[in-house]
C-alpha cells in the first residue's frame, strides 16, 4: 500500500515557496538585466535588487547598506569570520572564539583562520547544548578579534543566548558574528535592539532558492572581502548579483516573518506530539538538548541499542526522510561533532536521528512517524540482541 512520503528534513532544505517562485520568475525572463548596466534593462534589475536589499534589511532590523547578498550560508559565514579576522589581525587581536557545535561552515572558516595564524578558542558547552557562560567570560578577552556563535543549532535545535553574549563581546571590543541560518523565523532577530555585528541567513532554509543567502554587516564593521573583482555591493562582494534569487530571498523572508508566530506555535505543537509519541512507545529514547531552550522545528533522538545509519535507511525505504549527524560529502553518516561536544557517548551519538519539521509537516506526518519509528527501533534492538 503506497503511503504519502513524509519529509522531516526541513533543517537540511525546504522547497521554494510558490509565491517566491512567482516573484523570481520575471528576472529569469523579461527583466533579465545586469544591475551594473546603465541602460533600461540594467536600471530595472538594479531597482529590483535595491528593493530586495531594503526588504531583507527590514526583516532583520537593518538598513539596506548593511545587507550583503551571498551565495548562501557558507559564504556568509566565511566572509564574516575570515573577513573580520583579516581586517583586525594586525591590531593586536589574534584570537577567534567559537563553539564546538557550530556548522562546518563556521568551524572550517575558523580553522582556516587558524592556519593563517589565528588563535582558535572553543567555548565549553553544557550537557544541555548551551554555551557555558564561565567559559565565555574566560575566553572572550581583549585579544579576541571575532566571536562567532550559532543562534540555533542545526542538529539539536538548542538556542544560544546570542543577544546577551553579543553585548558582552562588544563590551570587550570583539566583533560578534552569529550564524542564524536555523534561527531566522524561529527566534526574534532585530539588529536595532541586539548588538551582533554580523549575522548569516540562508534562503533555502525558509522557502527561497538554493544559492542565495545574506550577511548582515553592521555599519562601521570592517571586513576584508573574500572575492576580488568588480565594485558590486560596494566592492564587498564582487560578481554580478543573483537578482532573481535575491528578490526571492526578500519575498521568502517577509512571508516567513509574517507567519512566524503562528508557524512556530504550530511546529511546537507538532514536535511535542512527535516527541511524546516516541517516548510513549520508547521510554528510554534520549532527546538531545531537551532541557534547554530549543527552536520549535528540530528534534534529535537517540535510542540506545540502535544505529542511525540503519534506521535512516529503513525510514527512507518507508518513505520517511530524516537525517543523521552531519551529512558527509560521500553521503555517509559520520558521527556528530555536535553530540560529542555536548558529552553524548559515542554509542548513543551513533544512534541519533534528527527530525526537522516545517512547511510540509502536518498531523498525518507525525502520526505516521509515531507508528513507524518505534516499530523500526524495536526491530533494530531485536537484531542487536540476536547478534
Amino acid at each position, binding site marked *: 500500500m503506497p503511503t504519502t512520503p513524509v519529509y522531516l528534513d526541513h533543517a537540511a532544505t525546504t522547497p521554494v515557496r510558490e509565491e517566491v517562485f512567482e516573484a523570481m520568475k520575471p528576472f529569469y525572463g523579461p527583466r533579465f538585466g545586469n544591475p551594473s548596466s546603465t541602460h533600461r534593462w540594467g536600471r530595472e534589475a538594479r531597482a529590483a535588487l535595491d528593493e530586495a536589499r531594503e526588504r531583507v534589511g527590514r526583516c532583520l532590523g537593518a538598513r539596506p547598506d548593511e545587507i550583503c547578498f551571498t551565495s548562501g550560508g557558507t559564504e556568509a559565514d566565511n566572509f564574516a569570520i575570515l573577513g573580520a579576522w583579516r581586517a583586525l589581525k594586525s591590531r593586536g587581536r589574534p584570537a577567534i572564539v567559537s563553539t564546538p557545535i557550530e556548522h562546518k561552515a563556521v568551524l572550517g572558516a575558523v580553522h582556516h583562520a587558524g592556519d593563517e595564524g589565528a588563535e582558535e578558542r572553543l567555548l565549553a558547552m553544557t550537557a544541555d547544548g548551551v554555551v557555558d557562560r564561565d567559559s565565555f567570560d574566560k575566553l572572550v578577552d581583549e585579544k579576541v578579534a571575532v566571536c562567532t556563535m550559532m543562534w540555533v543549532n542545526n542538529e539539536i535545535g538548542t538556542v544560544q543566548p546570542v543577544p546577551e553574549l553579543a553585548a558582552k563581546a562588544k563590551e570587550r571590543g570583539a566583533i560578534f558574528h552569529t550564524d542564524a541560518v536555523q534561527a531566522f523565523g524561529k527566534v526574534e532577530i532585530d539588529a536595532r535592539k541586539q548588538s551582533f555585528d554580523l549575522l548569516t541567513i540562508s534562503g533555502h532554509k525558509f522557502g527561497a532558492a538554493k544559492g542565495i543567502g545574506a550577511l548582515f554587516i553592521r555599519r562601521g564593521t570592517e571586513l576584508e572581502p573574500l572575492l576580488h573583482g568588480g565594485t558590486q555591493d560596494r566592492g564587498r562582494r564582487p560578481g554580478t548579483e543573483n537578482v532573481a534569487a535575491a528578490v526571492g530571498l526578500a519575498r521568502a523572508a517577509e512571508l516567513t516573518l509574517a507567519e512566524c508566530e503562528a508557524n512556530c506555535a504550530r511546529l511546537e505543537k507538532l514536535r511535542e506530539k512527535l516527541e511524546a509519541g516516541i517516548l510513549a512507545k520508547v521510554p528510554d529514547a534520549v532527546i538531545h538538548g531537551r532541557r534547554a531552550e530549543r527552536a520549535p522545528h528540530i528534534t534529535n533522538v537517540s535510542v540506545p541499542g540502535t*544505529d542511525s*545509519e*540503519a*534506521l535512516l*535507511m*529503513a525510514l*527512507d*525505504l518507508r518513505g520517511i526522510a530524516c537525517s543523521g549527524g552531519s551529512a*558527509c*560529502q*560521500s*553521503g*555517509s*553518516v*559520520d558521527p556528530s561533532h555536535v553530540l560529542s561536544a555536548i558529552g553524548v557517548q559515542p554509542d548513543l551519538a551513533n544512534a541519533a536521528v534528527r527530525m526537522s519539521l516545517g512547511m510540509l509537516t502536518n498531523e498525518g506526518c507525525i502520526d505516521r512517524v509515531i507508528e513507524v519509528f518505534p516499530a523500526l527501533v524495536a*526491530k*533494530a534492538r531485536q*537484531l542487536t540482541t540476536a*547478534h
Partner: protein
Amino acid sequence: MSGGVDSSVAAAMLVEQGYDVIGATMKLFCHGTDVPDRPCCSLDSVNDARRVCEQLGIPHYVLNLESRFGHDVVDNFVEEYARGRTPIPCVRCNTFTKFRDFLKKADAIDARWIATGHYARVANGELHRGLDANKDQTYFLWGINRNVLQRMLLPVGHLDKTATRARAHAMGLQVIAEKPESQEICFVPDGDYVRILESRLPADAPALLPGPIMTSNGVVIGQHAGFARYTVGQRRGVPGGFPHPMYVIEVRPESRAVVVGTREELLGSGLIAREINWLADRPEVGEHVSVRVRHRAPLASAEIVRIDGDELEIALDEPVSAITPGQSVVLYDGERVLGGGFIESSRQQRNSLPVLAA
C-alpha cells in the same frame, strides 16, 4: 557497490530478474586524502555507484564502516607487516566487513539477500569458483561465515569479464563499462603500503629499521631499510651479482633479517595454516584436495596431513613457489570451496646447494 563494473552489472542483473534491489556503498576510510584517478573506493566511485543506482531506479546508500574496517582490516594489515608477514586485507574485509558488519545493515532493512560483484558462484549452499578462471575471487572469500552462503547472490560469477563489460554496455551503463580493473588494495591507493606503515607504526618499529640481507647459509650480502618492504618471492631490492636470480625466501622479524635464495629455495613442499574456516563439511585427514596459496597462483594438489582445531597442515604433491606467511591457502574439491586459512609457515625443501655471493 564500488562504482565498478562488476557490482554495477550485478545490481542491474538482479533488477532485471525482478528483485527489489537496494544499492549500498561502504565507506571504509577517509576520503580526505583522495586519489582522483583510482578505480575503486574513491569519492568518485561512490558517485559512480550513486549514478548507476539512479539509472537503475533503485535507492542508494553510503554506509560508514570506517571504524570497524580500520580495526578489523587496516590495523591488522599494519600488525602483520610489523610481524614480517604479508597480509591479505581483502580476505579480512570480506570476512568481517562485507559479509558480517555490512550484512547487519541488510538485516536492519529486512533485506533477505546480499549481492556483490564477486566472481564466484553459490550453489546449494556451497561456494564455487567463478566461471571465468582468470577472474575467480574465491581466494578472498574462504573466511566468511558458512551460514551467509544461504543469503549470497553473486550474479556475475556466471559471466566472464568480457561478458560483464558487454552487459554493462547493453544495459546502458557506459559510465562504468570501461573502467580499469582495481588491482590495488583500496586503502593503499598508490600501492605505496610502506607509507601507511610509516604513518601508523612508531619510527623505531623493527619492521622499518635497517637490517641484514643474507643468504640461507648466513652470509650477509647487504642491508635493507626495513623488512616490511619485503615479501616472500620478491626480487626488487635484492642485491644482484649472483649467477641465478635471487628472491626473498624468508623474513625473520626477530633478527630483522631478510633471507634470499634461488628459485629452488623458494619452493615449499607443505604448509601450516591457522584460523581455518570451513565452507563445506570438514574433509578428513589423508584426503586429497586442490589448493591455492596465492591469488592467481595455479591450483596445486595436496594431501591433508593434520587438522587440529583451527590449525591445518597439508603436504603438497609437487613443490609450490613462494608460500608466504600471512597469505591465504584455500582448499577446493573440484570447483567447490572447502575452506581456507591464513598461512602460518611453509615447509621448505632445501635440497639445493648453498649459493655463494659472486
